């Protein structure tokens, strides 16, 4: 790989300091920073709602809020976390920033579309915030009809329009990534030299453009059902409310992979860098992303085993769900084996990645209970499901997000954070997380339905809820701490060398930290294999030199 790192040039952060230079930017890196700020804000909103729910559940009769408020709190938590954090976070921040850099391009294919997607995201987000403040939404993030279309009060219409708009933001990003990855790779950057980060985002984008329109139009139909009384799902008109569920999950199961594939993409990068090794079974990991993307579209019915879909449909979807488990399992083994004969460096991103491995394994394995159509019957709609998807979504996506944030923080801003604090904090996230969600498996298995405000009729559940809330408090602390030390590092952190982790890849080796506006000087030409770690290159990189210079 050719490398020219000049230090005396303006980086992308210095290209303009006015508000307009940020709000009208077409630079993918600046848009990624805009996303980083807004996504963090929505994550904060969603976490507040989560804390409200957890506090309320410490007592079987609830003490803090009314039924209505409780329902609005968990709905807000669900909607904000799913539509405004999980789906967006890694692709729109890290994908946006890194895909062009990793394939050696100057920008995404459609920079204006990229900016537009951020505006759509903000528009949808603001609509949802207004809906939340002017009456709230109590139908849960799944918006099942006829509850959402006919019976629920509150600002569901506005919230649904918000979700519809934010759907377009995903679609724009997806179209952009696909065009970029296909057509804008640097000379020598063949498909089999693409970093797994790019492979993961490619698979994600395929799911986005195939799935998101379906849920967008479905939610729009619910809006029409509420506003204009046009009824496609209304049982009063002979319509089928279960059809809504089919269309909703046709997107929303693949959406689970929209959330976790980028997380997996991040983990591949971190495992390779901090093991100083090529990702074990690179081809398998890359293809398993595509396999997951393909299979994800034929498993949606496993959310509906007891929804009154046909018994045989249930068995079909159960079967396909076991198939989709295999590529995920392959990935876990491959990431573990990446450390084999490597040189494991336990820096904070690596600790997050290892945490991801453990939590994702538990999350994935507990998926088997839910994929098996018989065992699903008892635990579906209970806290068992809640615990399961939090292990995948929080244990998977959130830990990957934090890992990515720490890994690429020097690349984004050219500063280092206090590594010691970061390490201990990563451990606290892991512990707090497990303390929060392990008890929920038990209480779900005992039969506690999800979205329950009271459980005085089954007081034996309380001990688990108290444990879970304690864990959630620890988790909350462990999420506030990075907010502080990362912000601190922006101003006072030591300047980072161009490649502080001695990582391979165009974004580290051929660009400065932070990068210049056009990422590279000239067009990088790729000659070597991906993840081509060797001791000599590492030694040089840590001294801030490249092979040519040496």
């Amino acid at each position, binding site marked *: 790989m050719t490398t020219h790192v000049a230090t005396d040039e303006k980086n992308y952060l210095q290209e303009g300091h006015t508000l307009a230079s940020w709000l009208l930017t077409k630079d993918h890196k600046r848009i990624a920073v805009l996303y980083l700020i807004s996504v963090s804000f929505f994550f904060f909103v969603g976490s507040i709602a989560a804390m409200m729910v957890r506090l309320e559940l410490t007592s079987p009769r609830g003490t803090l809020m009314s039924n209505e408020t409780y329902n609005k709190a968990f709905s807000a938590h669900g909607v904000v976390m799913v539509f405004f954090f999980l789906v967006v976070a890694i692709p729109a921040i890290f994908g946006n920033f890194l895909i062009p850099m990793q394939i050696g391009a100057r920008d995404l294919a459609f920079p204006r579309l990229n900016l537009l997607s951020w505006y759509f995201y903000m528009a949808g987000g603001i609509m949802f915030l207004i809906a939340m403040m002017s009456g709230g939404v109590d*139908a849960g993030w799944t918006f099942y009809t006829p509850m959402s279309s006919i019976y629920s009060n509150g600002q569901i219409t506005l919230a649904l329009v918000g979700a519809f708009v934010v759907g377009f933001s995903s679609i724009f990003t997806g179209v952009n990534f696909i065009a970029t990855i296909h057509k804008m790779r640097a000379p020598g950057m063949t498909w089999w030299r693409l970093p797994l980060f790019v492979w993961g985002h490619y698979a994600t984008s395929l799911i986005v453009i195939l799935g998101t329109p379906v849920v967008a139009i479905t939610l729009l139909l619910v809006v029409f059902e509420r506003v204009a009384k046009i009824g496609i799902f209304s049982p009063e008109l002979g319509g089928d409310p279960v059809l809504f569920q089919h269309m909703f999950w046709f997107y929303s199961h693949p959406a689970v992979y929209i959330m976790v594939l980028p997380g997996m993409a991040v983990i591949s990068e971190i495992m390779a860098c901090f093991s100083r090794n090529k990702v074990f079974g690179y081809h398998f990991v890359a293809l398993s992303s595509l396999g997951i993307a393909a299979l994800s579209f034929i498993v949606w019915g496993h959310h509906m085993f007891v929804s*009154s879909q046909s018994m045989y449909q249930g068995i079909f979807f159960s079967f396909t769900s076991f198939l989709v488990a295999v590529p995920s399992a392959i990935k876990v083994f491959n990431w573990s084996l990446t450390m084999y*004969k490597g040189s494991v460096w336990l820096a904070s991103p690596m600790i997050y990645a290892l945490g991801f491995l453990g939590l994702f394994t538990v999350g994935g394995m507990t998926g088997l*209970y839910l994929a098996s159509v018989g065992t699903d019957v008892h635990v579906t709609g209970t806290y068992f499901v809640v615990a399961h998807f939090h292990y995948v979504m929080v244990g998977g996506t959130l830990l990957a997000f934090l890992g990515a944030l720490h890994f690429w923080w020097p690349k984004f801003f050219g500063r280092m954070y206090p590594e010691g604090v970061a390490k201990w904090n990563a451990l606290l996230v892991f512990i707090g997380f497990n303390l929060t969600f392990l008890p929920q498996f038990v209480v779900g298995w005992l039969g506690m339905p999800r979205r329950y405000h009271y459980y005085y009729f089954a007081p034996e559940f309380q001990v688990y809820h108290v444990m879970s809330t304690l864990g959630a408090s620890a988790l909350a602390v462990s999420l506030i701490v990075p907010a502080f030390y990362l912000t601190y590092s922006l101003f006072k952190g030591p300047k980072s060398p161009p490649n502080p982790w001695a990582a391979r890849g165009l974004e580290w080796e051929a660009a400065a930290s932070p990068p210049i506006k056009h990422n590279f000087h000239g067009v990088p030409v790729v000659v070597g294999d991906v993840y081509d770690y060797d001791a000599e290159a590492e030694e040089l990189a840590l001294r801030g030199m490249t092979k040519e210079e040496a």
Partner: protein
Amino acid sequence: MNFPFAPEQASNFAVEYDTLFYLITGFTVLTTLFVFVLCLGLIIKYKRGSGKPEDRRNPMHHNTIIEIASSGGFLSIGLFIFVWGAKMFLDMRQPPANAMEINVIGKRWMWHAQHDNGVRENNELHVPVGVPVKLTMISQDVIHSFYVPQFRVQFMVVPGRYTQMWFTPTKAGKYNLFCAMHCGTQHSEMGGYVYALEPKDFAKWKETGGNRFQPKPELPAAAGKQLYDDFMCGSCHTEKDNQRAPSLYGLYGRQRQFTDGSTMVADNDYIRQSLLAPEGKINKGYESMMQPYSFTEEQILELIEYIKTLGTPIPTQVAGGAQ
């Protein structure tokens, strides 16, 4: 404070369910431990700066045999669980022919159950131990889910169509009844208890409805007959097929053939559909003549009960009225 670790086993499904559940738990724990030990071992062995010089000879970056063997092994264990789970599900979805039938209506935010002798109860369900019970369920408004954790059974209660589930209680006792599908403000309080009684006690309870609720004076089938007469269904649907309409005698559970050549067994959903939107399934050899009717869910269930009694002599207790 007690630490319960498993729900009680109180139905015919519970033991088999738990066996499979614990099997998957074992598999989960083993796999997690395996990943944990593997990672820990690799970290210790290959930790950077542990003094040993790094050995980067003979690197191994892929191994197709390991990949295929591990995914194959994982898949075969998965398929074993799949087959067992699917078999269990088929059992759960197919009630035995001799099951005792109870109708359940879900509405925000209560459960309403009707026994075949006219006894009704709200937010409670009394069932006999050792007798298969089949619930026919429908919702009046939003989607609910009928969930009894100790029985390991759950199924959604949907507006616009009947769903059913069955179980055989195996142990007398009082069990939780939950609505497991978010249904609005008081979702968490849409529930109550299922009482499994010894058959003797159950018979006694059913006689009087537990003295808690006065049974409606008439049997569902008798109420259905009243509706049938009020709407003069009998002027077209006579005892024998005629030119205007097919007879409803012996209709329930029979195979019907329609003008478009398709066939269907006349079940609850079919009768409900034929009342609300008759044109959908016109019997072979007939013109479409019947207009759609709008009945409440309760009335439809009563008409179905009445139609079930047609074709066989009406039991004397019906003729004689209620208890």
